[in-house]
């Protein structure tokens, strides 16, 4: 039997990879994908605790997280398309309009 700690460690590693991609990439699309990775790590942790506590309410919460992730992806990708249409670039280091 796989202990529940293994799932938690896997979730932590996945979250760390998402954070690394979020910080170190400049392409806005890859940054959005890293956010999806972090949301999936949170979901994995929720489901691991659901299995440990044998409580199905955690599954409902993970369901909500998936719905929020879908909404976030739709709005985020629309914003990326809008930025690309106006500035012909999705490089985050070049988006300094609100910096001054």
């Amino acid at each position, binding site marked *: 039997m796989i202990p529940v700690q293994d799932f938690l460690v896997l979730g*932590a590693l996945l979250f760390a990879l998402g954070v690394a*991609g979020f910080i170190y990439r400049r392409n806005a699309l890859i940054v959005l994908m890293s956010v999806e990775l972090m949301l999936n790590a949170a979901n994995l942790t929720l489901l691991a605790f659901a299995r440990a506590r*044998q409580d199905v309410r955690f599954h409902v919460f993970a369901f909500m997280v998936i719905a*929020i992730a879908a909404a976030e992806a*739709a709005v985020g*990708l629309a914003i990326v398309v809008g930025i*690309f249409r106006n*500035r012909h670039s999705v490089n985050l280091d070049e988006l300094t309009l609100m910096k001054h």
Partner: protein
Amino acid sequence: MSADRIIFWAFAIIFVLGGSLFTITRRNAVSAVMSLVATFFALAVVYVCLSAHFLAALQVLVYAGAIMTLFVFVVMVLNRDEMDPWARRGLLSRVLGIGLSSGGLVGLSFYLLDWKPEVTLGDLPGEWGGVASVGEVLFSDYLFPFEAISLLLLIAVIAAVVVARTPRQMQQLGLEESPPTAAEPSDAGSHP
């Protein structure tokens, strides 16, 4: 370490962690999306290991199906390889960031591997985590959050359409009065 743990970690390292590592390191956005799809499928398998069958099906349908299709379409619209994909940062902040995050991660992992939870992974009824058991809770105790989340998704879809529109398309829909000449971006040539 038992055999099923070895199989689990081999699968997790190769597919989940390897797929996500590919996602954040590929220069080509199509490769990144495809490895993200592989990661989501592997995560669905991990969910089945946690006997969350309904969430595993949702993972494949919503993430690997819907969200990834959205990403693929956006990549198709604006696909161009980057010359220098990594963010500009100083050596000090880079060393500090990597050191702090990996140090915290290793500490957390050691703590978790030593942690002895009070709960035990006993036998579950066969239908636990399936559509029936999740749906029973979802549509009784959590009916209002479920309806609220459907409203949120509707608002998100409308917002996505409004944000990603062109002024010409909005005028065709009768939602905007500005002439079509305003569709040309004024600062198209001024970006660095």
